[in-house]
């Protein structure tokens, strides 16, 4: 199985809201970084960095809970011989519950993302990094405060 096949399977599981399968496609210690996630408090900034089995699964489950029709469309994918994979994917959904600071107004969003993966020799994803523009996401969901 190629690294791009593994990643394609990951997004298929995501479309099916099968978070167990998403996690199963990853190494136990897989790293997770959702770069735009930042919660700024008075004392510290909480970021979307950690492990797939803890932060990652929680984020995916919460997203699916807040956007019950969450889906994705992979528009471009490439990989190399060392297990690196890059994906452009549009993630979309209609809000049914508040998500973090984004209150529920029942609005729909379609948001371009770039995901960077590394797939190890056991065909397991051991690193996930994602980028998107939260300003665009907030606008589509009716939130105008930057923070």
């Amino acid at each position, binding site marked *: 199985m190629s690294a791009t096949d593994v990643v394609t399977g990951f997004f298929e599981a995501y479309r099916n809201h099968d978070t167990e399968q998403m996690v199963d496609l990853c190494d136990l210690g897989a790293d997770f970084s959702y770069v*735009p996630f930042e919660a700024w408090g008075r004392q510290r900034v909480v970021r979307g960095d950690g492990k797939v089995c803890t932060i990652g699964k929680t984020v995916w489950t919460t997203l699916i809970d807040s956007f019950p029709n969450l889906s994705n469309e992979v528009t471009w994918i*490439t990989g190399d011989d060392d297990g*690196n994979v890059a994906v452009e994917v549009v993630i979309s959904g209609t809000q049914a519950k508040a998500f973090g600071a984004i209150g529920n107004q029942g609005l729909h969003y379609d948001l371009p993302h770039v995901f960077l993966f590394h797939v190890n020799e056991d065909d397991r994803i051991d690193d996930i990094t994602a*980028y998107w*523009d*939260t*300003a665009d996401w907030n606008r589509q969901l009716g939130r105008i*405060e930057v*923070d």
Partner: protein
Amino acid sequence: MTVLDRARTFISRRGRQEPVDEKAVAQRFFERLEVGDVEGAMALTTPDGEFQAVALGVKGTIGGEGQELLEELRRALPDVTLQVTRLFAGHEGTAVAEVFVDGTQADDLFGIVNQEKHVDVKTVWLLHVTDGRIDGIRAYWCQNQLYRRLGVKRLDRVTITA
């Protein structure tokens, strides 16, 4: 040499068929930008190649909208550093670069009023390379992170910081 490998070669100035090293081209592109040599970076590109800055909704050509954006970035962040933190090349000829952008605002940037604040934002650049030249650029970053660092409070008042 496989068909795919042959497709990823170009005829050098010495008339030899040379392998295209997409990663080296991408690395040189960011090195030129970091030292303020936008023209040098542009010399590595095909000017009529497609350019897209997704967070800004900018689409155009590398030599048009792309060059304008890079010149604005250099002017607004004159002390900018561009640290390539991950770089690989996909089989179809696209260099994928994660670039950490760090600098201090000295002029308006993408409509954001200058308050001389510090910026540090992670970005991703997809640079498609053909015959040793970049002929497609798509750049991703989180504009919300940029707004937050530069003091913008509301998305409907990007040019107002108070």
